């Protein structure tokens, strides 16, 4: 114990007198945590999203395209629905014909021949577009045939051009809370806090903004979007482009856009079901049933009552009428029940997002365990590696070996000292997180235990690294290099579950993985001792294994 104390005191003195090392081991992680914490403090702000509204009155040609399995069938549908269809030749001819107005619609392969055109009656515009969307199966809005070639390739791709003038439903309004909103305004209305919409006149301009990084995603509202939202038998296909240059940014963008569109979709479903319910009521009361004036079942029933009274002298016929009256009553009741049912189940899913920790969590909260693990990893690896490399650099490892002191003594002292430095730093970070971010630390005993074991085990790993190098700068470099790899491998930055199986298993032989698991489990998932003891045990065993390994290597280096 006395020799252990001598090593501890000596190493503590050495550390305390090395200002640069202090800066690297303690100040740097604190600064880094501050910077990362500050970066995360703004998460949750609206994602900048480019909006291209093609559902607006226009004289221009609107384009959409799709890869189709059977182009002949698509042409067949086109010829059937485009009015007087004519062969146009190649893409250039088709563009010219559309521009001149000799055809209102055209279909063909991008960059190829065999285009067809049609002179479309504006009254048939809605039906034409609906049929073509079916034939092309999920077409995507495009800025023109050239983009179709770029995005989808040539083989099996068909492009449909439609002059806006033959689509009367463009710019249709959707009533929400007493306001008539066109597609763009509708998106703006439901953007809420998830998206900050920036309108662009066309797909090209929006793509340029996406490429330049001015927006994180682009949403193209297709022609007839509002019409599709209101129709009972139509589906709108939206083209979404996301900047995937950064996985996290792409994730935020996708989440933001999905959130916006789900709110729009929800309102559309609500309104459609309200319309169906109203329709069911009209069946009873009579009136406008989706554009057709109908006599209500209630009125028919009154008529039957009168007939029954008139047939008072004919009990056989009166009985038959009574049966009809009963049937009418049943149908009216059933319609009421159906209306109630639809009202009640219009939106069967109401999401209430929460965390298992029992309190709402933010990205800031989620960053805390990762930041603590990162600091453990950085300081533990570098401190452990430096403490051993120091002995070699000063030539003291050999001298210490000559004293006959077993190698486990200096190794134990270094694990303890490095563990203390690392553990104190982690506690400080956790305390600051709690103070600044207001993050409550649940189960402090368990958190303390995992920080202690994590600090010791990562320090022991650092010692192993230190035995492989002869100088402190080399130890720093080696420690930093290994930290960098383990940073990704431990799941603090990228979820472990998303990694290949062999990496997931490899990660288990390093302490940071277990520390991250327990810390995030306790702080963010409400885990306790029962769920964490195994990871804690693994951390302890790894500490023992790495300490043993460091001790063996120390002896070997001391003998050489």
């Amino acid at each position, binding site marked *: 114990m*006395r*020799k252990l104390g*001598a090593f501890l*005191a*000596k190493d503590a*003195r*050495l550390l305390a*007198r*090395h200002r640069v090392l202090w800066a690297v081991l303690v100040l740097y992680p604190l600064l880094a945590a501050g910077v990362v914490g500050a970066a995360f403090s703004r998460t949750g702000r609206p994602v900048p999203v480019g909006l291209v509204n093609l559902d607006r009155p226009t004289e221009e040609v609107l384009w959409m395209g799709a890869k189709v399995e059977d182009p002949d069938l698509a042409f067949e549908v086109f010829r059937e629905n485009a009015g007087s269809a004519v062969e146009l030749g190649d893409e250039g001819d088709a563009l010219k014909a559309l521009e001149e107005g000799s055809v209102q619609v055209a279909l063909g392969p991008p960059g190829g021949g065999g285009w067809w055109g049609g002179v479309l009656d504006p009254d048939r515009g809605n039906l034409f577009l609906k049929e073509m969307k079916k034939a092309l199966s999920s077409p995507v809005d495009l800025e023109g045939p050239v983009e179709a070639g770029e995005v989808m390739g040539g083989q099996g791709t068909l492009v449909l051009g439609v002059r806006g003038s033959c689509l009367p439903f463009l710019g249709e309004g959707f009533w929400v809370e007493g306001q008539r909103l066109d597609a763009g305004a509708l998106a703006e209305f439901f953007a809420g806090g998830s998206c900050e919409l920036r309108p662009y006149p066309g797909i090209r301009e929006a793509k340029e903004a996406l490429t330049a990084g001015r927006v994180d995603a682009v949403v193209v509202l297709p022609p007839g979007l509002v019409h599709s939202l209101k129709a009972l038998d139509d589906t709108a296909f939206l083209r979404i482009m996301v900047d995937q240059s950064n996985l996290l940014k792409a994730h935020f963008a996708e989440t933001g856009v999905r959130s916006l569109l789900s709110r729009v979709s929800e309102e559309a479903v609500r309104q459609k079901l309200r319309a169906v319910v109203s329709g069911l009521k009209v069946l009873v009361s009579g009136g406008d049933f989706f554009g057709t004036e109908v006599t209500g079942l209630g009125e028919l029933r009154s008529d039957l009552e009168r007939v029954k009274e008139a047939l008072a002298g004919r009990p056989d016929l009166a009985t038959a009428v009574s049966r009809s009256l009963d049937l009418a009553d049943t149908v009216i009741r059933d319609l009421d029940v159906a209306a109630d049912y639809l009202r009640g189940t219009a939106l069967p899913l109401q999401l209430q997002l929460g965390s298992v920790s029992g309190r709402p969590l933010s990205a800031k909260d989620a960053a805390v365990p990762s930041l603590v693990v990162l600091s453990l990893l950085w300081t533990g690896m570098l401190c452990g590696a430096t403490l051993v490399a*120091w002995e070699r650099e*000063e*030539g*003291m490892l*050999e*001298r*210490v070996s*000559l*004293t*006959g*002191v077993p190698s486990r003594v200096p190794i134990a002292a270094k694990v303890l000292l490095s563990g203390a430095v690392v553990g104190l730093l982690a506690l400080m970070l956790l305390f600051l997180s709690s103070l600044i971010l207001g993050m409550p630390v649940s189960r402090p005993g368990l958190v303390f235990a995992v920080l202690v074991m994590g600090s010791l085990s990562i320090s022991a790993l650092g010692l192993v690294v230190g035995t492989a190098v002869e100088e402190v700068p080399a130890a720093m470099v080696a420690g930093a290099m290994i930290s960098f790899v383990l940073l990704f491998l431990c799941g603090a930055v990228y979820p472990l579950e998303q990694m290949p199986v062999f990496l997931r298993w490899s990660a288990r032989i390093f302490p940071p993985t277990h520390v991250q698991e327990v810390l995030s489990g306790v702080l963010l998932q409400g885990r306790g001792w029962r769920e964490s003891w195994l990871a804690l045990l693994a951390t302890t065993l790894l500490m023992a294994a790495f300490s043993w390994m460091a001790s063996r290597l120390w002896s070997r280096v001391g*003998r050489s």
Partner: protein
Amino acid sequence: MGRMLEGVDLVKDFGRTRALRGVTLGVEKGEVLVLVGPNGAGKTTFLRLLGGRLKPTSGRVQEGGREVDTSEPAYLRRLGFVPQTPSFYGRLTCRENLLFAASLYGLKGEARERRVREVLDLVGLSTYEGVPARRLSGGLAQRLNVAMGLLHEPDYLLLDEPTAGLDPVARRVLLALLSRLAGEGARGVLLTTHVLDEAEMLGGRVAVLEEGRLVGIFRLGAGEDGPGWEEVRRRWEGGR
């Protein structure tokens, strides 16, 4: 009792290279044995074999005529090994370095303090005891290096080229110190050097190693150096 620490027929191979080719040589308590030889002659290898830092390919190490296990802690504690490059913690003071080393040898309390003071006096570093070791000059640093090997009062002091890199004055002071250590402490001092003048300055026994072989042992300053030593000197000076 004048016991001798001796390497007997020591052979050491490093891969295909034979660094020592059957060297038998020993140092007695109370004497200074200088092992001289050009670079690569096998001086350090011989020293490290005696010091338990290397295992011989063949041959043995004997102490008082008995073979010893050079990895035994008890044996190691009877040696003071002074490596060529000064080995101590640069950010600790001379005194802190010595206190730490003394603790490793099991010294504690007042005994530890006393021994550290004695050694500081012995090597002439008392006035520098509070100076961080990295601020010491080359000569003082080498004295601290020797002091670190002396703390536990070893029977034998093995020094690997202790004067390397020192200026002439510092070299002379250090050699005088080593001479005194052998005499006063009744301990055997074995040091290596490739400078013949140092061997002559110290006097006593000088062993010459060349290409892993012991080519001669001379007793300088006692009229026994004779023509053999002159020949060694001529050969070395001719080769320079």
